[in-house]
């Protein structure tokens, strides 16, 4: 009987795994992610002919051997993959709840443990699939820019030891955040961002402040601490940069030796991989199994989360938005439509209304030096809100209704863009006005950045039909921008004061391009193509 059960379970696991991979790999969002991954990989490996380097040690370039490229690319991928992978893989259970398939799944004899294991393996396989594409791109780049033979074992060993614990961690967190209703919604999305930031911080701290083995390295799921430690050990330096930096062309290229992985380092990674499985335990214990008592269709859409709870408490504040609906009805065309969308966004997120009022006050009273911080907070809240504007209709099955209104899909799409910009103005108006007076370039950066980000949110939402793709890239971008405050290209909305005329124009053009791309896609959809 047990043998039969095991055989059935293994068969079920196989099909569950296959289905999960099929479902995810066939999503348009995955295609976008793969393209983004390929572009990122190309950007990672700067051209040595132009004196660019992936790893720079005390100003000296580290030669592009297999060891260098594997270590550098694994470190850089480790930085963002845990975040992007989470948002890409997440949401399957919400999809089950929304489609009604969840009820059927719950009524099958499949054990919750088997079902969850299947989902976890599906997450792992999907993320590993993405990493394989990444590896293939790296190998192509090695052929083009590498400075030694391709040593596949070094790549596999490095990626396996660095990225597998990260994949396990991400897949486990995806499962936990999908299995427990309070984490299923947007609140969970935001909470994970902070968890991810925390684990990055732990890894970096362990690497920087320890000369010997540090148990904190076990929590370094992204592997950044392990890599920095090993590279520092092989090439001791006062200034190590992974991901490109200023190269002193007069210094000879350094060689990162092969066989960097000591037994201790490898076992630490294995330990990390095992620790990454821990979230599976609460996931199993807290799994809702699609019980209508614990997870409703509404929750599958918006999520029962602390954020939803806060919005529930602040619901009376939504009355403040009522006049905006009236105004929207009086304004003709796309303007009225955009105002209606703005009103809808605020009425369904009263917490945003409170945040807007708070930002309004802060923007007026904060000192000039603090305005950048106000804009960081405003951008963060705004980005989270606009991530759902372009996908709200699809997720609530009213896409068709919108398409049937005057102006159709194309006007609806343009109105979404406009509503996002209006929302940004609501959050940032006092700072924008003050910057116009004292720092016009920052004001211009704020405007062009808002245009570009709103267009990106619309296009990515339209392509992927989920808010998470934009949210992942947006949160990652904000994180990187707040860490590298003097890089002009990263100062999208001017909060670092590093933006230049060139970046402002660049983001303005990018915004227009993305917006036109989105409009083109919507017009094709409207034409039924």
């Amino acid at each position, binding site marked *: 009987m047990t043998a039969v059960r095991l055989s059935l379970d293994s068969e079920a696991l196989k099909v569950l795994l296959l289905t999960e991979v*099929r479902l995810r790999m066939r*999503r348009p969002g995955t295609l976008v992610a793969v393209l983004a991954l390929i572009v990122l990989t190309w950007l990672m490996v700067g051209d040595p002919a132009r004196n660019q380097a992936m790893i720079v040690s005390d100003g000296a370039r580290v030669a592009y051997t297999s060891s260098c490229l594997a270590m550098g690319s694994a470190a850089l991928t480790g930085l963002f993959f845990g975040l992007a992978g989470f948002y890409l893989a997440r949401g399957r259970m919400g999809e089950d709840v929304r489609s009604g398939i969840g009820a059927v799944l719950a009524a099958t004899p499949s054990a919750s443990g088997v079902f969850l294991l299947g989902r976890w393996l599906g997450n792992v396989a999907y993320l590993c699939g993405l990493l394989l594409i990444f590896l293939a791109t790296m190998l192509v780049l090695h052929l083009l820019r590498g400075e030694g033979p391709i040593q596949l074992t070094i790549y596999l060993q490095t990626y396996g030891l660095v990225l597998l614990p990260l994949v396990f961690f991400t897949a486990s967190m995806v499962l936990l955040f999908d299995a427990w209703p309070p984490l299923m919604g947007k609140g969970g999305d935001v909470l994970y961002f902070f968890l991810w930031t925390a684990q990055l911080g732990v890894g970096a701290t362990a690497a920087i402040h320890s000369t010997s083995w540090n148990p904190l390295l076990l929590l370094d799921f992204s592997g950044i601490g392990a890599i920095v430690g090993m590279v520092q050990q092989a090439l001791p330096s006062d200034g190590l940069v992974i991901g490109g930096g200023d190269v002193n062309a007069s210094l000879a290229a350094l060689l990162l030796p092969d066989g960097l992985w000591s037994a201790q380092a490898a076992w630490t990674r294995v330990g990390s991989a095992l620790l990454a499985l821990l979230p599976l335990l609460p996931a199993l214990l807290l799994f809702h199994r699609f019980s209508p008592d614990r997870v409703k269709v509404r929750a599958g859409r918006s999520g029962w989360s602390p954020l939803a709870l806060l919005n529930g408490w602040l619901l009376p504040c939504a009355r403040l938005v009522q006049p905006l609906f009236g105004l929207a009805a009086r304004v003709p065309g796309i303007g009225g439509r955009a105002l209606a969308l703005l009103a809808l966004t605020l009425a369904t997120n009263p917490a945003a209304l409170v945040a807007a009022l708070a930002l309004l006050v802060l923007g007026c009273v904060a000192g000039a030096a603090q305005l950048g911080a106000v804009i960081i907070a405003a951008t963060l809240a705004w980005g989270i809100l606009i991530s759902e504007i372009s996908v709200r209709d699809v997720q609530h099955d009213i896409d068709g209704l919108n398409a049937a209104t005057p102006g159709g899909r194309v006007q609806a799409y343009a109105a979404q863009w406009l509503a996002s910009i209006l929302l940004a103005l609501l959050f940032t108006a006092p700072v924008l006005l003050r910057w116009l007076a004292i720092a016009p370039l920052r004001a211009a950066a704020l405007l062009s950045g808002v245009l570009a980000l709103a267009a990106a949110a619309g296009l990515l939402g339209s392509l992927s039909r989920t808010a998470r793709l934009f949210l992942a890239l947006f949160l990652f971008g904000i994180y990187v921008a707040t860490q590298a405050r003097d890089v002009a290209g990263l100062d999208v909305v001017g909060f670092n004061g590093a933006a230049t005329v060139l970046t402002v124009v660049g983001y303005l053009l990018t915004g227009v391009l993305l917006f036109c791309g989105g409009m083109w896609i919507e017009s094709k959809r409207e034409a039924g193509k």
Partner: protein
Amino acid sequence: MLELRNVVKTYGKNVRAVDDVSLDLSAGVVGLIGHNGAGKTTLMQMIATIAKPTSGHILLDGVDIVKQPDAMRTRLGFLPQDFGVYPNLSALEFMQYFAALKGVRDPARIRHLLELVNLHDHAKRQAAGFSGGMKRRLGIAQALLNDPDVLIVDEPTAGLDPEERLRFRHLLSEIGLRKLVIVSTHIVSDIENMAGRLAIMNQGRLVDCDTPDSFVQRARSQVWSVTVAAQDYDTLSAQLRVLQAQRHAGGVTLRIAHPSVPLAGAVPAEPTLEEALMTQRYAARDNAALAA
């Protein structure tokens, strides 16, 4: 086969979605009828083991399925009302997925069921692109994968065209010859020709359970037919329980629910099942009003 003993389901402190329902069911088609919000879906979710009763027992062949849900799940086919399909998955892959979850290893079974619901020519097509009726047929195919002893279908004909509706009813009738089929609906015509028993729910309570013939029998001499002048219709409809009104050249022919002759010229009419159920509902309301 299936016994419900004093099943109660409450939400919060005051909302009793299902209120002390007791019922014995054996093989055959059982129609669960009630208006929206009567508690049908909640009751079916509890029978399907996806929701737990607040109190009471549900027994399948003597086994308490609240305590041992797998006893039901291994023998259950379930098609919920809001059944969707995964995007980017073909009908065949969709069936393979549920076959794996139900422990069905025979690929021939999947082919057979796709043929049964007339989707075999579309097996390789993406299910998300199917019409509403095709999705529903795929839903019933997945529900039948494990050759269930208990089949639960919620609003099975929603979105189906007349031909598909007919085919669907026929299929459920055939299954009901050997298995227990519980069909929840508020469309009486869906089940009047296939259900052996009807369980009527109202405000969470099981108000009646009998054969369709019995309901019709009880309504005989309580349904009347009369033709009146068109200008009298508004007055009469305000005074009487009009079940149906059909206008024609000679006036308006009314069918009226009433315990005795409602007005001069009215003759007894053979009630339909729907009229019988409405008559019973009106009678219950009148009794409640009298008692109050």
